[in-house]
């Protein structure tokens, strides 16, 4: 019990229950029917801090970014003023703070947080919302990239589901950095929760409304992202806010394969398919995640070579050189899809589908492998082996100009054919660089290709789905 007033309200409610129950039943009320009633004060900042409100800036932010301004105000005697610092401001890199009321408030009777705002220049406020109290932030709600200009304008941040906000501590929060390196000032006034009655047509989404399919494995924990709630405002504008997972109810079509916890983290438990969907306040969310769990994931053997003897392109056992991409999607002939898409408890695996050829590029900067003797690669063919299946690995060196073309590029191929291939198990190869015939340059290595189609196959793909891991150069 927070105070006498709260006690009184609870007492009144209990009395109500007793009167209702006299006629219907003889049971006594247990403690469980006690309803916690918190104040429903809608004001956050009108002309000063509302009761219980505090100011707590983020660590690393400009701590004095917020002040009370009695000169620039929309209404009444003062407004909230926020001074966003310049880049390299010694007092803080950005402006950001929470305004909590740790006593908690019941916001369930409102449908929007509203305020008037203006700025010294047109700008885009990175994040602004409520539900942040440096605690669990269970119902964090954020309007991202709020456009603001130099005239006072009213803004509406809809509550994703008011019925969940019976005990909310985070009344307001924001985070904003410099615009193009420059600081500026914005003001907020008449900040309050309102029951507008005109915030309507809720359309929640997960995964930003996309229907995604993900190959996964027992023990994987993909997180559901892109959780939003969209309302149509009386202006006709659709307002989308980022809504915390706790607003949603998640469902799995196959809980034996995958479940979702209340933080929106998927837990893969078994083999098979499970479609994850969600609802927000009874409205089905757009978007879904279909987990295709292949069961226990068997990782390739962990590389054991000394890091000093290795230049790694793609391995979680080493620090990798900068890579531009794992799939260049080279038009018009490449069909290959995918890239570093599989994540098994932090261990990334490249998955290519529809393979005909694909390149990983690491040209910024190019890599000098002149001291190295071998290329190591682990790969796995994820399908029944075709009789003519092959994998050709091609290395490309960009030559002295360290750029593609210019007449100094060299490359060489190494082809692995069926006697040395198998399906659905890791194939580990250590290939001497001298085996890549034609690869005369070693100082500006920039490309590793996987190729499953050439003239010998009539330019038809012979391997479609390929996993790749642990691509690195080494010396013995």
């Amino acid at each position, binding site marked *: 019990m927070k105070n006498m007033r709260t006690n009184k309200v609870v007492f009144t409610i209990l009395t109500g229950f007793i009167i209702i129950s006299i006629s219907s039943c003889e049971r006594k009320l247990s403690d469980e029917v006690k309803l916690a009633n918190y104040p429903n004060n809608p004001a956050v900042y009108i002309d000063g801090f509302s009761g219980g409100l505090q100011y707590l800036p983020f660590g690393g932010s400009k701590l004095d970014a917020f002040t009370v301004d009695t000169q620039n105000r929309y209404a009444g005697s003062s407004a909230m003023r926020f001074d966003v610092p310049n880049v390299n401001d010694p007092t803080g890199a950005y402006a950001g703070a929470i305004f909590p009321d740790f006593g908690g408030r019941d916001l369930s009777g409102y449908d929007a947080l509203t305020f008037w705002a203006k700025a010294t220049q047109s700008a885009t406020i990175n994040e602004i919302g409520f539900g942040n109290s440096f605690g669990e932030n269970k119902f964090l709600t954020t309007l991202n990239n709020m456009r603001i200009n130099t005239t006072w304008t009213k803004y509406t941040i809809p509550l994703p589901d008011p019925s969940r906000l019976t005990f909310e501590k985070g009344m307001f929060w924001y985070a904003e950095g410099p615009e193009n390196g420059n600081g500026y000032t914005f003001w907020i006034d008449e900040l309050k929760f309102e029951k507008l*009655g005109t915030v*309507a047509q809720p359309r929640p989404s997960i995964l930003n409304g996309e229907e995604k399919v993900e190959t996964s494995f027992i023990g994987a924990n993909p997180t559901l992202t892109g959780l939003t709630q969209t309302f149509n405002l009386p202006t006709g504008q659709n307002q989308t806010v980022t809504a915390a997972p706790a607003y949603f109810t998640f469902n799995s079509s196959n809980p034996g394969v995958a479940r979702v916890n209340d933080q929106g983290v998927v837990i893969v438990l078994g083999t098979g398919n499970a479609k994850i969907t969600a609802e927000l306040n009874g409205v089905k969310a757009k978007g879904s995640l279909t987990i295709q769990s292949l069961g226990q994931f068997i990782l390739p053997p962990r590389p054991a070579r000394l890091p000093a003897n290795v230049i790694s392109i793609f391995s979680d056992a080493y620090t990798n050189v900068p890579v531009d991409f794992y799939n260049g999607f080279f038009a018009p002939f490449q069909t290959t899809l995918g890239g570093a898409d599989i994540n098994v408890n932090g261990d990334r695996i490249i998955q290519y589908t529809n393979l005909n050829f694909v390149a990983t590029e690491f040209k910024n900067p190019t890599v000098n492998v002149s001291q190295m003797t071998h290329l190591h690669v682990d790969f796995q063919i994820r399908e029944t082996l075709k009789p003519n299946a092959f994998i050709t690995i091609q290395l490309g060196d960009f030559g002295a100009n360290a750029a593609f073309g210019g007449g100094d590029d060299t490359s060489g191929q190494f082809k692995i054919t069926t006697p040395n291939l198998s399906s659905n198990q890791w194939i580990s190869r250590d290939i001497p660089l001298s085996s890549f015939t034609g690869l005369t340059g070693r100082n500006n290595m920039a490309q590793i290709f996987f190729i499953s189609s050439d003239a010998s196959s009539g330019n038809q793909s012979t391997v479609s789905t390929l996993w790749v891991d642990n691509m690195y150069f080494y010396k013995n």
Partner: protein
Amino acid sequence: MKTNTQFMNIRPRWFGKGKLVLIAGAMLLGCSDYTQKVTNFNQLVLAEEFDTNGPPNPAIWGYDIGRGQNGWGNNELQFYTDRSKNVTVKDGNLVITAEKESFNGAEYTSARLITKGKFQQAYGRFEARMRLPWGQGMWPAFWMLGSDIDTNPWPGAGEIDIMEFRGQNPTTVLGTVHGPGYSGGQSIGKSYSLKNGRFDTEFHIFGVEWGPKYINFYVDNVLYNQITPANLPGEWVFDKPFFLLLNLAVGGSFVGSPNNETVFPQTLLVDYVRIYK
């Protein structure tokens, strides 16, 4: 929702004090505005309650089909059909559905119901209880045209728009008249906005009380406009029978085209249409 009690509850408030209006032996909701010219129409002539599932009653409702001339004169984008996909009665409502689909050269389909040749009346109270669609480019309307339109072309025949609405403006409806010298952009009318509600989330009542030399426009229990000959820059053409239209247009010069945020399908729900004399 269609009991007499309900009807009494939604009765417009400007029924004159002292002029006892007795409907189904019910009560009087009194209040007055002595400055308004008011006649009471309390004899139910037509009560279309939409209680039978399937196509709307063919004795009352016909259809405009197709795209008309230049999108029914407004560059509207839909093709009107009488398919159940676009118009049906279901669960106590007439349901007019605008779909985004390629159909006979149009990008959208919808429906327009018309009582021409089936029901017409001069004067009376004309009202419908409806829930409107929402989103940029949606244009539902409940309106009337002069029955002599075939021999007296628009705008000469006259038009009474009991309710028009722009989906991108979900709190506002418009009531308008068109006639010779005051049509299209020069039409005479007024808008009405809800302060704490919307027209797409709940049902509202839209109506006119039309007598000799006046038309009153109301939403729910609020009279928001009265048009008399004194308001018109041209001839008063509203002393003859008019027929009814109910439609959901998509796009057009009045409302603009849908955009990529417009959600389809959209529905216009009509709980009832009641005509009194």
